[in-house]
């Protein structure tokens, strides 16, 4: 059975970890001895059973009642398996939130019904949008604190829909819940009869797991070159399409043409085809010099070879970026130093432009970058081939920002 990875995001104290604990408890996903261990840990701190302790495992997290780092945990419904990714809600830990969210293909944004939409609510929503996650459900939590009021729900629902619209997104469902008691989480609530929509779990079951782009033109990213006996094997991953032995390919950006001689998989000699997602090796018919970073492509259907890349990037580094600084782009196995031609600063919480022609970008801001790589980069629209449409920017060897490519770029 395949697994759907989803991330739970939202402002600090709006109930992310509690919701996860409750879901695991209600779907019977917790080993008995772990529940016992949990009760003991809560007792030691003089508290009732605290569902958030299931994911908040660090001593500091439990004592201060705050999630510091992202966690992944599995559970299953009758329909399929899930990995829940818990993400911290503090501004200080945004990079951990992003680490978690980058592994997800769906997101649940949780909002405290009493406090309403807060700074990190909007910021997390914008990060979800920047990471290209389109399947989103909004959970209006702690409905017990607003007397299960339908009016409050409608008001918040309208507010949430408006700010999602500015991100060009529409949540699939907006659900009133009480995470600590389980209302509308795994089971329908008896305390909000006016709500006739889905429970959170039902909403999750409706999300789809993205299929690998097997029906797209071939893209094969070279990771490394191994010498095995007499063979030179180009190891890598099929990012899109199907790779076949005997197929004509072009390595880009170097523009060298050849034919796939063999597909190399240990223990599966004579394999003739490999599809998107497979990590394999190939040998080629011509003695070409090929290195990591080359992308083997279907000859007739070349990808975009970009001399310039425009994208919104979330800046999660703790250091400021100066426009004059060199920055490195990492996209699939490609790596290139870039200069920044243009930079616009955007507030990641209000989505307002702070400065059109900026010379600097600060932590937690969104930068609209125009990047000029020192050598052309093979890219695809993120919606077509994810692996070639997402990138990380490194500053002094450390990951500092990340984004996706969604608009068509200049063809070479």
């Amino acid at each position, binding site marked *: 059975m395949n697994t759907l990875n989803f991330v739970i995001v939202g402002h600090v104290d709006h109930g992310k970890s509690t919701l996860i604990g409750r879901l695991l408890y209600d779907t019977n996903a917790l080993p008995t001895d772990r529940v016992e261990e949990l009760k003991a840990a809560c007792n030691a701190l003089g508290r009732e059973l605290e569902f958030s302790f299931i994911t908040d495992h660090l001593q500091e997290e439990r004592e201060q009642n705050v999630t510091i*780092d992202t966690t992944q945990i599995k559970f299953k419904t009758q329909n399929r398996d899930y990995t829940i990714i818990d993400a911290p809600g503090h501004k200080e830990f945004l990079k951990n939130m992003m680490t978690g969210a980058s592994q997800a293909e769906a997101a649940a944004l949780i909002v405290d019904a009493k406090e309403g939409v807060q700074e990190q609510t909007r910021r997390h929503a914008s990060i979800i949008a920047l990471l290209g996650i389109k399947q989103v459900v909004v959970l209006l939590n702690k409905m017990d604190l607003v007397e299960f009021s339908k009016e409050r729900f409608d008001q918040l629902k309208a507010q949430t829909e408006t700010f999602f619209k500015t991100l060009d997104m529409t949540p699939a469902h907006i659900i009133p819940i009480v995470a600590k008691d389980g209302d509308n989480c795994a089971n329908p609530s008896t305390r909000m009869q006016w709500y006739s929509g889905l429970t959170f779990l039902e909403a999750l079951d409706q999300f789809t797991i993205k299929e690998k782009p097997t029906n797209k033109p071939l893209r094969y990213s070279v990771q490394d070159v191994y010498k095995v006996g007499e063979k030179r094997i180009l190891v890598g991953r099929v990012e899109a399409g199907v790779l076949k032995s005997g197929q004509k390919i072009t390595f880009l950006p170097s523009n060298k043409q050849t034919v796939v001689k063999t597909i190399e998989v240990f223990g599966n000699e004579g394999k003739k085809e490999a599809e998107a997602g497979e990590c394999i090796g190939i040998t080629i018919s011509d003695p070409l010099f090929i290195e990591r970073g080359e992308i083997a492509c279907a000859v007739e259907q070349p990808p975009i070879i970009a001399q310039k890349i425009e994208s919104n990037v979330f800046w999660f580094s703790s250091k400021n970026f100066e426009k004059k600084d060199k920055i490195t782009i990492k996209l699939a196995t490609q790596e290139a130093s870039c200069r920044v031609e243009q930079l616009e600063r955007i507030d990641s919480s209000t989505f307002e432009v702070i400065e059109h022609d900026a010379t600097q970008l600060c932590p937690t801001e969104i930068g609209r970058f125009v990047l000029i790589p020192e050598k052309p980069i093979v890219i695809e629209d993120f919606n077509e081939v994810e692996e070639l449409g997402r990138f990380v920017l490194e500053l002094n060897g450390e990951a500092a920002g990340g984004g996706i490519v969604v608009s068509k770029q200049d063809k070479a």
Partner: protein
Amino acid sequence: MDHLDILENKSIHIIREAYKQFHQLGLLWSIGKDSTTLLWLCRKAFFGNLPFPVIHIDTTFKFPEMYTFRDHWAKEWKLNLIISKNQEALDRGIGYATHDAITCCDELKTKALKQLIAQKKFKAILVGIRRDEHGIRAKERVFSPRSENFTWNYKNQPTELWDQYNSSAESSDHMRIHPLLHWTELDIWEYIKRENIPINELYFAKNGKRYRSLGCMPITKPIDSTATTVDAIIAELKTTKTAERAGRSQDKETAYAMQKLRSLGYM
């Protein structure tokens, strides 16, 4: 691709990234099911010939069956096997009869590894831990830097987006690389079945008991089980309500024992 194919391919991708970034690489082999699966995946990634050594940290308190298994498969698979002990601590009489589990783990495992890394100048170590084993391990990164004194800075871990791994270990001493982080215990057994991976006999039930997780003999307890085959283990795991490491006492001595062990450099 089915779900085992997805897991396998992701791991092979990570292993190859690891080798590309760090040629001074070693694989930590505890002889248990996870690191044996990891070893299997490495053999696949490198077409049967590992271009780096396999490390066994020998506390000298392992089960006899583990030593037999290690020596047999090291020879069969032509591994460059490094066996490493903290001889100085053993000479001082560190052992389970006289010392607590945390001290033994720290002295005989963590410090032994520390000595080896310093001596052989490893820049990265492949380790077969999984997120679902323990809440603390669930917070790990795939590429996880360790400082010179081996500490894991769990409050300030690097950002890791998609499958772009943090390659620079500038301020760090070495990188721990975790290619099995996304697997569950059940996945491991289903993969062992599919691939027919050799697995230590201690995992299979004898006289109503089997080991679910292997460690040092004095602190590793078997569970009640009648599972004598891989299929029976898979069936058992699908219904069990106890945790995998319930038989491993070093996790349990105090509520945050695992966090403390790991922040000191434990696996």
